[in-house]
């Protein structure tokens, strides 16, 4: 059985639009009759990734592949890269600005949430070049 592929561009500045790509994927999975808990996991993991791209990397692109067994999310940006992945994975560690915090984000939960809600996660980052996060959520 073949897979479905979708491509999204995450706008670099528009914080109010963050979440549109995740919402779109959520809608598609729902129409496909996907398990609600799987949909929730994908929606949360992807939204956190989107927010990270807006906060830290001036946007980026997301490729989503839906196969009969998995949902694969590849989030790629050309941002500053992550200096210390171990620290970034710690809940509560954040480099977000005050402005971002006033919006309710930047509490250092993004990457931990992405890890929590995906079944597999890999971070490929190079300082000054960018970051690619790959997440896989298994279908039930």
């Amino acid at each position: 059985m073949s897979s479905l592929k979708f491509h999204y561009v995450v706008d670099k500045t528009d914080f109010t639009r963050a979440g549109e790509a995740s919402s779109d994927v959520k809608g598609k999975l729902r129409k496909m009759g996907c398990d609600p808990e799987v949909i929730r996991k994908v929606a949360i993991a992807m939204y956190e990734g989107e927010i990270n791209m807006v906060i830290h990397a001036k946007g980026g692109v997301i490729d989503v592949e839906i196969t009969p067994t998995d949902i694969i999310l590849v989030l790629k940006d050309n941002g500053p890269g992550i200096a210390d992945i171990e620290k970034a994975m710690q809940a509560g560690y954040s480099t977000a600005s005050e402005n971002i915090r006033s919006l309710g984000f930047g509490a250092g939960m993004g990457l931990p949430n992405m890890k929590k809600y995906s079944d597999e996660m890999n971070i490929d980052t190079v300082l000054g070049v960018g970051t690619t996060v790959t997440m896989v959520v298994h279908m039930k």
Partner: protein
Amino acid sequence: MTVKELAEKSGFEALNLGEEGTRDITGIYCCDLLSVVMSKGFSGACWVTIMGNINAAAVASLTDMACIVLAEGAAIDDMLIKKAEQQDISVLKSDMPIFETALKINGIING
């Protein structure tokens, strides 16, 4: 209890009733930090918060919560309501503080 029933019994103003308020409420959740809500908010939750910006709509939708209750008579961004209408998210408004709001909701749905 559905969101519509809660709106009627609480007297909280319904700024938008998504899915005509038919969603069932499975519990109450209070938090203002969206990063934490993304982690802990649960499906079917009645989410009590003062965070009245557009991102609250995205968070409520993506975590599959039943409704948002904006407490403390919090300032509400017009874009939040617009987004809520687009995405079928219920938004109620309370002038009471968060704790009293949640307590009242608890009395109605569990009392």
